[in-house]
C-alpha cells in the first residue's frame, strides 16, 4: 500500500492540489521561507505602534528617533520610549538605556517592559560612544538620550554599528540619518478634573516619517499610557467603568458649584 502512494506522488508534477490550497490559505509555508523572513530580522512592537512603523515591527539594524514638540516640555517622549521597548522586552529581548537618568521605572514596568532585562547606564560620561558601541554588540535594543545633539560623523558610526550588529538603536532627541522618526504632535491627559478624578490615560498623536520604506507619513492616535498602563490604539473606544465614575463625579461637582 505504501509503495502505491509513493508511485502516485512520483508520477505527479509539482505538489498536490490540496497543498496548493493550504498554501494559498497561509497555513503552510516552505521551509526555505523561514530563513530570510522578516520575522527573523525584526523585533515585535505593541499593536498600537504597528501602524507607525514600516512592516509593523522594529527592523533589526534600524535607527528610530523619538521627539516631542518643542512647545510642550513633557509631551510623552519617555512614555513612547517605554512603549517601543515593551513588546520586544516582554518577548525576551535585552534592552539598555544610556544617558537618561530620570526614568520612571515603575511606569516602564506598567508599560510592559521587563525590568529584569533592562540595563541602565544613567551617567555614561564622555565615553558614551564606546559604551553604546559595546551595548549594540550584545543587546537587541539600545536607547540613547543625547540632550546636546550628536555630530553627524559620530552618528553615522554608531548607526553603522547598529546595522552591522542587527540591533535597534532608539534615540530620544535629534539624530541625523534616522530610519524612522516618531514625532509626537499632540498630547492630552484624560481623567483629571478640578479636584475630582485623577490621571487615567493620555491621548497622543504620533506622526512617523523617515527614509526608505518609512518615507510616507503615517499618523496614529494612541492612548499612552492606556487605561491599563500599556499603550493602546485610540480608535478602539475603551470607556471603562472608571471613566463613567469620573464623569458622574465631575457632573456632580459642577452641579454643586452651580447651586
Amino acid at each position, binding site marked *: 500500500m505504501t509503495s502505491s502512494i509513493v508511485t502516485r506522488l512520483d508520477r505527479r508534477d509539482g505538489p498536490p492540489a490540496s497543498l496548493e490550497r493550504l498554501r494559498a490559505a497561509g497555513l503552510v509555508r516552505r521551509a526555505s521561507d523561514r530563513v530570510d523572513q522578516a520575522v527573523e530580522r525584526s523585533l515585535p512592537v505593541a499593536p498600537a505602534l504597528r501602524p507607525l512603523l514600516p512592516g509593523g515591527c522594529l527592523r533589526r539594524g534600524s535607527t528610530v528617533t523619538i521627539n516631542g514638540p518643542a*512647545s*510642550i*516640555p*513633557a*509631551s*510623552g*517622549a*519617555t*512614555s513612547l520610549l*517605554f512603549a517601543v521597548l515593551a513588546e520586544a522586552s516582554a518577548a*525576551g*529581548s*535585552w534592552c*539598555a538605556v544610556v544617558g537618561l*537618568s*530620570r*526614568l*520612571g*521605572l*515603575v*511606569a*516602564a*514596568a*506598567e508599560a510592559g517592559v521587563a*525590568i*529584569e*532585562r*533592562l*540595563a*541602565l*547606564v*544613567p*551617567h*555614561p*560620561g564622555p*565615553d558614551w560612544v*564606546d*559604551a553604546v558601541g*559595546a*551595548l549594540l*554588540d*550584545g*543587546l*537587541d535594543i539600545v536607547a540613547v538620550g543625547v540632550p546636546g545633539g550628536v555630530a553627524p560623523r559620530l552618528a553615522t558610526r554608531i548607526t553603522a554599528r547598529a546595522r552591522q550588529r542587527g540591533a535597534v538603536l532608539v534615540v530620544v532627541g535629534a539624530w541625523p540619518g534616522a530610519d524612522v522618526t516618531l514625532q509626537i504632535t*499632540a*498630547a492630552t*491627559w484624560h481623567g*483629571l*478634573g*478640578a*479636584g*475630582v*478624578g*485623577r*490621571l*487615567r*490615560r*493620555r491621548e497622543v498623536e504620533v506622526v512617523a516619517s523617515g527614509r526608505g520604506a518609512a518615507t510616507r507619513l503615517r499618523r496614529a492616535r494612541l492612548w499612552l*499610557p492606556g487605561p491599563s*498602563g500599556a499603550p493602546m490604539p485610540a480608535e478602539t473606544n475603551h470607556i471603562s467603568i472608571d471613566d463613567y465614575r469620573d464623569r458622574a463625579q465631575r457632573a456632580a461637582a459642577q452641579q454643586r458649584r452651580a447651586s
Partner: protein
Amino acid sequence: MAVRTLTLWCPDWPVTAAGLIDGVDPYAPVAVLYANRVLACSAAARAEGVRRGLRKREAQARCPHLVVVEHDPDRDARAFEPVVAAVEALTPGVEVIRPGVCAVAAKGPAGYYGGEEQAAERLVEHIALHCGVVAQVGIADGVFAALLAARRGRIVPPGATAEFLAGMDISTLDRPELVELLRRLGIRTLGDFAALPAGDVLARFGVDGAYAHRLAAGKDDRPLAVRSPPPDLVVTGEYDPPLERVDMAAFAARALADRLHERLAAYGLAATRLGIEARTAAGEELHRVWRHDGLLDAATIADRVRWQLDGWLTGSATRLRAHGGVFSDPDAPTRSDGLVVARPTAGIDRLRLIPDGLVRCSGMQPGLWGELGEADARAHRALHRVQGLLGPESVYTAVLGGGRGYAERVRLVPWGDERRAEGNDRPWPGRIPAPAPATVLTEPIPVMVCTADGAFLHVDERLTLSGPPATVRLPHGPGAEGSSGAPLTVTGWAGPWPVDERWWAPGEANQSVRLQLGVADGSALLVAGRDGTWWLEAVYD
C-alpha cells in the same frame, strides 16, 4: 559495649568565654546570669559564696563586687571553636557535646601517645598552650561516665565504670523530674538505680527512664557523633617577585579563580559572594566582598580583582573604616575633607579568594533547544564590557520594591549584584494609583503652587486646600523641564494624597501630601508638599 571515651571539660566555660571574647577578667569574681539566675561563676566568685542557681540580688549580696555578665550561647560556642580545633590538631573525630565539653574516642590517642594518661596530659598541655584555657580530661567507658570522670579529673580503668558510677549522686543524670521521683522512692545514688531490674524500669519510667538506667549502669553504648571539619575553600596565591601592575594581578587572579572553581565544583558548591583580599609586600591589606547574582566564573573574578586593585592603585579616596580591614596604612596622607587616600606602597605579594554564601550547585542547565542562555550570555558579556569601560558602578538594573513615592519604589543595583525586591507584598496605603509618571526626578526641585489670588497654596490638617490651585511656577535653570520660569496655568488637579511615614525614626520621618496637577499645555506634574514647600517630584512625561 560502651566505647572507651576521652572527655575534655573546661570548667566554668561561660565565664571563660566571656573572658576570651568580651575581655572580662576570669580571675575576678564573675557570674554569668540567665533569667536572673546564676548559670556559672568564676572560682573567685565561688570562694565568696556565689553558687549556681542563685538570684542576681542574692549573689550580689554575698559578693558585692561581683561582675555580672549576661548569658550568650553564641559567645560560648564561638569561643569554644579554637579549643575544638586544637583538639582536632592532636586527634581527629571530635564530638562537641556542648560549648565547654567535647569527647573523642580514647583508643586512637591512647595508642599513639603511649597510654591514656600520656594522651590526657598531652591534650591538656596543648590546649593550655594554644588557647590559654584550663581543661580537665576524664576517660571512662561511655560519654556519660567519661564526663563525670572529667569533672573529677580521673581516668577510670576499663571495666570499672559501673563501680565508679555506683557512688555518684542520682542528680548527675540531669533529668530533674526523674531524679525527684527516684529520690522520693528512696533511690539516692546511681548504683541504687542501676540495681533495679531493667524490665521494671522500662515499664515504670518509659524509654527515657530505661536509657537513664543504662547510663547509671555504665552501659552507655551511644556512639560518638563526630563532627566533620568544614572544608577549607579559601584559595591563596603567593607571588615572588610581588605583582606591580594591575593587569599582572588580574592575570594571576585568573589562575587562582580556576583553582577556586575546581575546588568548589569538587564539593558540589557554588559561591554567591566572594571576598578578595590583596596584601602588599609592605603589609597593607585591601579586602572587599563582591556580591554576585548567579555564579562567578574565572573571567568575572579576574575582572573584580582588576576593578578592586584599579581603584586602590589609582588612589581613589577610601573612607577609613574601623571594621572590615579596608585599609591599614597609618601613614597615609589625609586630605582636607577627612578622607584618607589609600594607596599601596609596594607590589602585591599575596592574593586570597574567600568564597562566601555557598549554595549547592549541580551545574548550569541550558535550555533544551538552546533558546535560553545564548542571547542572555551575549547580553551579559556586553554589559560586562561596559562595566569594564566605565567602571563597576556605571551599569545598573532596577529592582521595584514597595513604597509610596515613585523614587523610593525603585532601587538601582549595580549590574551583577544580586537583585532582591522588598516590600512588594505590602499594601502601602497612600500610594498614588497607576499610571505612574514616566520621568521621576532624582532630586526634587522646589516649585511655587499658588491659588487664583496669587497666594501660596496651603493644606491644613484636615487635608483641605486653601483654594483651588491655579498656577504653578517652576524655577529657572537646567533642573526644570524646559520651563522659563513663567507660571503655568493649572487646569485640573487631584489629591491631596497624604503620607505620614517613619514617624518613629526622627531622621527619616516624612510627612507630606501629594497632588497631581494638570497643566494648560497638556502635561501633568506630581508635586509634594513638605516642610512648607512644594516640590516637583515627577513629570507625567
